[in-house]
């Protein structure tokens, strides 16, 4: 699946987007975050505070407990500051 990073999550990860292939044991957004955290210092820093990062699955806001199921795109970002 495709992972997108925005704002300071993007800056800390160091990438705007990438293809990721989590193992089958990763079934929820929270589990995916935990898995990403283990991929390197940059991810560990970006996802250090669980409550600071929001997620969208296939472009819809989701909670950490949301199953990833067959989503094609997941995005991580800080709380929004538009308008």
């Amino acid at each position, binding site marked *: 699946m495709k992972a997108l990073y*925005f*704002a300071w999550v993007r800056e800390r990860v160091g990438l705007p987007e990438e293809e990721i292939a989590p193992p089958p044991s990763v079934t929820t957004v929270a589990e995916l975050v935990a898995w990403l955290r283990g991929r390197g210092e940059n991810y560990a820093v970006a996802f250090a505070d669980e409550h600071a990062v929001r997620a969208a699955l296939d*472009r*819809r*806001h989701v909670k950490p407990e949301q199953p990833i199921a067959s989503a094609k795109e997941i995005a991580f970002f*800080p709380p*929004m*500051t*538009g*308008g």
Partner: protein
Amino acid sequence: MRKIVRLQKAAFDAAAEVAPLVAGLSDIGALVTFTGLCRDEAGSLVALEIEHYPGMAEAEIARVVEEASRRWPLEAVLVIHRHGEIRAGEPIVLVATAAKHRAAAFAGAEFLMDYLKTAAPFWKKARRSDGRGGDWVAAREEDEAAARRWERPRARGES
């Protein structure tokens, strides 16, 4: 309901955008416009760099406009949101709502703004006049609270 939704980098002229929204509609009693501007914060801010999530930003705005038109009898709705560099004093967002009566137009515009602030995927980075590297603008708890008040079953002006 007439509907105009646009994301763009370019600045906009609020009056020029609103005119076609209500042109020819003669049974509208109330037109509310909201322009969100880039404050210079007493001279300390030079510009904002607004990042957005293409695709999702459009989808979220469409969803919020749809929800507003379900809650209030709106005859026309406009949302324009900019991204990219926005200098102090320039407009960032324009929302306009038209309805027969003012309660619906006011409530619709406030609702749209509260949701754009908290649900549309845009992020602001500030460029300061003291040359400091940009800091990401933090989300305001007041904005979250403003959005939450619409979760009550029915709000004023709602039909």
